[in-house]
């Protein structure tokens, strides 16, 4: 089944990321909101920075380990709700 939903993250210049031990603190300049995240979120934000990708597209760049497509989709949903990722059907 082909899912055409696309996702996009802010440009790298719109995020400030600071490593805090195993976590990453992110300041999102457009919203003024600080987010604390852990892997795989920073990797996803960098991969999607300023470009639209489908979940298929993400899987072409990454091999999902320790989880599957459904897990990836739920992470994307969370990032959409947080405003860190924009989604387009």
């Amino acid at each position, binding site marked *: 089944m082909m899912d055409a939903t696309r996702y996009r993250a802010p440009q790298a210049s719109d995020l400030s990321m600071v490593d805090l031990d195993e976590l990453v603190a992110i300041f999102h300049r*457009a*919203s*003024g*909101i600080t987010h604390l995240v852990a892997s795989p979120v920073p990797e996803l934000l960098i991969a999607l920075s300023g470009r639209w990708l489908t979940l298929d597209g993400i899987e072409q760049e990454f091999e999902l380990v320790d989880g599957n497509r459904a897990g990836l989709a739920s992470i994307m949903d969370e990032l959409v*709700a947080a*405003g860190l990722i*924009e*989604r*387009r*059907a």
Partner: protein
Amino acid sequence: MTPALTLTRLLADATAASSLDPDAWTGVLGVARAEQLIGTLAMRLDGLVLPRRVAEVLEDAKATALEGRRQALWEAEMARRALSGVIEPLILLKGTAFAAAGLDAGQGRSIGDLDVLVPRAKLAQVEAALLAHGWVWVKPDPYDDAYYRQWMHELPPLVHPERDRMIDVHHTILPLTARRTPDANQLIANAVPLGSGFATLGHPDMVVHAAVHLFGDGDLSGGLRNLWDIDRLLREFGDEEECFWTELGNCAAEHGAADVVARAVRLADALFRTPVPAGWAGARPTDRMFLRRLLARNGWGQETRPATRLAFYIRSHLLRMPPGMLARHLWIKWRKSAGGKERLQQAPR
């Protein structure tokens, strides 16, 4: 000169800053904070040489205003994303619109709730989309709810609990019960797209809305800031658009708001020296009452002139509803509340 009057002079003419002594500054800053004009003042005086203490207070106010602007625009963006596919472009109103359009009126302005205008026919879809994207009703109160749906010009307020921001979804710009009934379809038809999925009202409509908001939608508390909006809009549009004043006159007449717009123009002229064409200038005897009300604030930030404020409080209810309905509304409110006076004590939103 009272601190409130000094504030208006300073906003209109920044060079007056050099003549103020510390006590005058203390009073001006107190009034500016209470009237939510401190960010505006900070932007107006930006770059001038000011006493150190004053400069520090205004620097903080400027930083606050810039953060507020960022959050307001972000809230608009989240609403746009939630409503994409339902409403495009999203028409922004009031402070968020001024900020998004880069208008002078938005410079340093404090911005509260997100106000948007949607066609009445799409209200149900808009409501459903917002609820699906995390917004919730602020309160489930049957009387207020029915009242809002039947009579008001907006949905009952919704809040996004994660971001703690409210959205007011309007389908027109005055209560349906008001004697003035602006033509909502025309407002939407005249909207000016901003790109990036947003729009504002057409410029004359924007001034009409600011004027009806100033006079028709409250008891004039916080009115100084709303009048400042009008001054800025008139100056900016009047400068840039040749036929602006003619269009404003036509537009105000079409919405049945010629008198409030004319009064707003006269008051802006009186307080902020807005450049106004000959036909709009002059003063009416009743304008004095309005000026008294707008300046009813002392240098400690306290409201003054209680009798004037009470008169405007009653007036605001008279404007909003036909007399019979007003009686019913006030009766229910009175029966339920500890007394209407309580409201007079509240700071402006």
